[in-house]
């Protein structure tokens, strides 16, 4: 039997056990971001289209990205540092790659769930209509971003044992996603020197692509593929690091 199947089954069993708090979190996260971030900023920022419709993309990215990051990172930290479950897993005939794949899949499972709930909530709150093709294109872009955050979460979870340090990293990531990449504050408000740095990061273009669907603008496919390749690269680094960390004292 493929070892990924029982591992995935384990994730489903955990999801089943925590289904109520998970769904509650999925519902609350976009509402909280909408209420405490998007609405106040809508009073300050003026643009060609309604700000709340424009910022919906930021809500999907922040909610789904943070969920994917936190789920993959906290699970990896839990099995490695907080409990000794990793011994039971590594003792089994599974490879490090299997363990990483299932952890990334976990982040994606929760991230995609969060994205679906977020898109439903923002569409309801903003009376927004998205065509099937728009949802499909947004989903492709979001899939890559959720994968990206799951991989980064797995890497961080594998490296950061200190709880306070992990909270700080999560907070910095949250601030970075919400404030640093034009998800809630258009990039034109930032100084040129900052933009010259941010625009070199492929995920900036991937974030921009999500908003482009709302604005009916063309996509930057180069940004999409660069994010995807960057994610694969981080994944390979994570695998190499796992061989240096797992099965070592």
């Amino acid at each position: 039997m493929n070892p990924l199947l029982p591992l995935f089954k384990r994730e489903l069993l955990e999801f089943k056990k925590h289904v109520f708090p998970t769904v509650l979190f999925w519902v609350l996260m976009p509402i909280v971001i909408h209420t405490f971030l998007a609405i106040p900023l809508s009073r300050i920022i003026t643009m060609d289209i309604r700000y709340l419709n424009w910022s919906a993309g930021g809500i999907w990215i922040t909610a789904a990205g943070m969920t994917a990051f936190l789920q993959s990172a906290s699970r990896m930290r839990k099995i490695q540092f907080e409990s000794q479950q990793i011994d039971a897993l590594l003792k089994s005939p599974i490879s490090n790659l299997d363990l990483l794949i299932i952890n990334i899949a976990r982040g994606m499972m929760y991230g995609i769930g969060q994205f679906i709930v977020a898109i439903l909530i923002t569409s309801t709150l903003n009376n927004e209509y998205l065509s099937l093709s728009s949802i499909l294109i947004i989903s492709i872009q979001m899939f890559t971003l959720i994968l990206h955050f799951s991989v980064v979460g797995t890497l961080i979870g594998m490296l950061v044992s200190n709880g306070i340090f992990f909270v700080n990293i999560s907070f910095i990531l949250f601030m970075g996603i919400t404030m640093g990449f034009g998800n809630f504050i258009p990039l034109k408000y930032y100084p040129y020197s900052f933009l010259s740095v941010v625009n070199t990061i492929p995920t900036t273009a991937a974030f921009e692509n999500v908003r482009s669907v709302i604005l009916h603008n063309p996509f930057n496919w180069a940004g999409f593929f660069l994010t995807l390749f960057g994610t694969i690269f981080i994944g390979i680094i994570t695998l190499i690091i796992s061989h240096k960390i797992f099965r070592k004292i």
Partner: protein
Amino acid sequence: MEASITFKAVGKAIGRKTLLADLSFGVEKGSTFVLIGENGSGKSMILKLLVGLIEKDTGSVYIHGQDISSRSLETRSMCGYMPQNINLDDDLTIFDNISIHGQLHGLTSAEARKNTLHWAELLGFTQFLKQSPYDQAFGLQRKILFARALVHDPKVLLLDEPTTGMDPHSRSTVWNILDKLHYDKTIIFATQNFTEAERYANRIAILHQGNIKMDGTLERLIETTHGLTNYRLKFSKEPPQEFMDQLEQFPRILRPRLKGLELEFYSRERQQFFKVLRLALEHDLADLDTSICRLRDLFIGLTEGGLE
């Protein structure tokens, strides 16, 4: 007999600290092999190395003829491992903890279910299967770990202090199961319980500072003491220093040690003992006890610089 496990010049170090030093030994198929040693002597390290939780620096290890480095997936699936610490999954029920572990080792869902129920019934925790393992007493958690190690019917069973924290009834259940299993499985267990080691082992290895100081059957190990006897004399009041000084004059009285009111020493010659006894009677001797050297004595002797 055919070898089940072979260690060849295995070494492991962290920085300057040597954890396993040029370790070589073999374990026959279908035998029960016991590792005894102090804390940090390398017992758990050997078990973890066998199940692939840590990697060796040098040497080779084979399980049923397969190298654990190049055929690690195969060798890991052959082993059942019960760790010293509780590492159960708190997000799953006891049933799922055992069943998922079985499925990770290649069992189908139905086989895993059947085996889980079988071991739960034998170990007496069927009624708790739907509960969280962390709501249970420590002894029961140890039994769950034991069931988890056995669920996939491994050829090699590696147990790290298996009965620690269990009540006498549970201990006896576990040993009865192991007694039945040892005909078709190779069992290695690490322990600090000499009674269990003497009772259940086919072979015993005494580990000290990452290497085997002595190994063999219990009878063979006891033979190496050449009839050494342990004597314990109890006094009503602490014997004077003069008595201890006199004792030092006896060349064949080994390791005389006074612990409170009890004097312990070893000797191979009865005459020497009688002479000490005569002296002791002059200093309020209250009681005495003698026993032939057992594993505990041998272990203390070997790990504390020898009995001689």
